[in-house]
């Protein structure tokens, strides 16, 4: 399979459409990167969606970069991954790579002097911002494992907000409440309907938490911190719900990815498995790589080996359970196929799994029926999942004590 895909691309080189896609995935990336426009002068004026990226290199001295596209208008969607699934990959890339970042260095423990940046980051509407660069930004894109792609950047000498940021009420309240612990703030914001991406942005610029303990959190960490904190609190509630009464099956195919979920009767537990086909973002090798991690009813104490995606998908799963008022054993599987080689951000998993669970599930009465259905859905055979999945193995092998209570 792998050789075939590689050979196809070699023969085609973006010209013949051999893979059957309307846009060559390789070209989509390069053309987007080529289109990255660098402002001519040292002054850029545009509407920040808002967007502020906090780097992690050099921690605790990190680079903080507010970003603007080189125009004024409604740019909200540029930093709102909750809306991106309806756009194509190249549209997302074009949008993101047009964001020009002005970089300032900040010590995470001394977030004083960046109040403008914080207010910008928690605004619910785009804010017109003027960035004055020390020298013209470099025409270089930034791709990150966790955060969405970003456009060119350069050190900034001055940042001026040309209009007032408008934080939504709950965020404004959390920002000025210096007694509210960060985790409580995160949960309050989530419960008042603030999108996860906005909470993550607020956390990353040090706008949340108990006064003297506030600090900047690199974007990558803040994304997972919010996914983790919110889903843990949702799961607390899920554990008190009744169990699903049959086996549920969900399937979603999107942009060279297949997402499937099985929810089995039983107590809450959760597993996330990724199968990276050859020549994808995280698998330069020639064989399919399958990795997974899981947690039982009581949750986990260590960081999941698969990192951000594990927590983003767990949030989506917990949201579904709570919405339906049930608990169960959730096994989530993602297959990533050959055309998918861009690190695009954890949002891709969160939003796809949310979308997956918006579908109407197929219902099966027995484990073997739902397992067969799984085998028909994925490109890898059922045997792979049965050997890699701790929870599927447990479902197949684990007896109930009730057998001995009759």
């Amino acid at each position, binding site marked *: 399979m792998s050789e075939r895909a590689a050979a196809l691309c070699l023969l085609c080189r973006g010209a013949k459409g051999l893979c059957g896609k309307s846009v060559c995935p390789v070209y989509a990336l390069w053309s987007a990167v080529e289109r990255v426009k660098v402002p001519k002068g040292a002054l850029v004026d545009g509407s920040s969606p808002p967007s502020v990226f906090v780097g992690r290199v050099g921690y605790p001295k990190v680079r903080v970069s507010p970003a603007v596209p080189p125009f004024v208008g409604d740019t909200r969607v540029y930093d709102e991954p909750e809306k991106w699934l309806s756009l194509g990959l190249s549209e997302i890339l074009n949008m993101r790579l047009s964001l020009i970042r002005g970089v300032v260095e900040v010590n995470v423990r001394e977030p004083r002097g960046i109040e403008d940046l914080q207010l910008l980051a928690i605004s619910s509407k785009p804010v017109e911002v003027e960035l004055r660069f020390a020298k013209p930004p470099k025409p270089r894109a930034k791709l990150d494992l966790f955060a969405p792609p970003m456009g060119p950047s350069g050190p900034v000498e001055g940042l001026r907000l040309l209009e007032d940021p408008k934080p939504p009420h709950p965020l404004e309240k959390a920002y000025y409440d210096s007694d509210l612990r960060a985790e409580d703030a995160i949960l309050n914001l989530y419960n008042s309907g603030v999108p996860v991406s906005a909470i993550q942005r607020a956390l990353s610029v040090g706008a949340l938490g108990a006064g003297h303990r506030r600090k900047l959190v690199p974007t990558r960490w803040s994304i997972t911190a919010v996914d983790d904190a919110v889903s843990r609190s949702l799961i607390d509630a899920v554990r008190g719900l009744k169990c699903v009464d049959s086996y549920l099956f969900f399937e979603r195919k999107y942009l060279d990815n297949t997402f499937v979920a099985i929810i089995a009767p039983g107590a809450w537990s959760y597993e996330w498995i990724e199968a990276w086909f050859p020549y994808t973002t995280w698998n330069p090798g020639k064989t399919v790589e399958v990795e997974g991690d899981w947690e039982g009813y009581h949750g986990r104490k260590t960081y999941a080996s698969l990192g951000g995606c594990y927590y983003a998908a767990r949030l989506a799963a917990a949201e579904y359970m709570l919405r339906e008022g049930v608990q169960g054993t959730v096994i989530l599987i993602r297959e990533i196929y050959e055309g998918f080689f861009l690190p695009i951000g954890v949002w891709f998993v969160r939003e796809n799994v949310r979308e997956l669970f918006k579908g109407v599930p197929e219902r099966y009465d027995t484990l073997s029926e739902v397992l067969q259905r799984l085998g028909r859905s994925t490109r890898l055979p059922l045997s792979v999942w049965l050997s890699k999945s701790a929870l599927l193995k447990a479902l197949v092998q684990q007896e109930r004590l009730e057998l*001995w209570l009759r």
Partner: protein
Amino acid sequence: MSVRFEFQDARDWRYLMESLNAIVDEASFIMDREALKLRALDPSRIAMVDLHVPREAFNTYEIEESQVKIGVNFDDLIKVLRRAKAEDKIIFEIEGRRFRIILAGKAERVFSLPLIDIVGEELPTPKVSFDVIAKMLSDTLRDSLKDAEMISDTVRFVGEENVLRIIAKSDKGELEAKFSPEGGSLIEYDVRHPSAASYSLSYLDDIVSRAYRVSEIVTVEFSTNKPLSLSFEIAGGGTLRYYLAPRLEA
């Protein structure tokens, strides 16, 4: 209802409650003239805990009714118990719907918790006969389970004539721990029929990593492809016992 009982060591009581919490988040104690009892299944109905503390184990033990149910949330209860200091005594008082926990040391600290209503089911004792019975230090068992966890999420108990093996296998490797009366790692060992069965390590670890503090000695009992029983004798009297359904490996 009106109930009052006092236990000598608040810390020991906390360990006991944490051990119950390995299986359930909330449950009802049944208190009658003879003993305080609790029997509950975990939410997946794979494991059961069975607690029996006779009245003799308490400093005082007063009950007006012939039987009362005390429904508690273990998270809340354990939070209170964590406040206990060494040498604190612990006293439980129920007057009507008021549930008071008193930590009595140099000072007397009185906490109030809500009693909760739990629709419990009457659970019988599992019908299993055990072909292998081994008594060992609970610490020793805990250690070998921790070893096994590095390898697999399932562990196999194999009871042979003179040796008990705990085995974990996966593509990550293999672990085998051997115990025998001769080697001194088994205090008592009785094999009616050689037997083997596999169990979930995450359950075993949840149980043993808490219950080993209740008792230094654990009695392990099992039969081929039948539930495992782990019993811990409580200092001062009483038993904390777990049953765990097997895994049938292909």
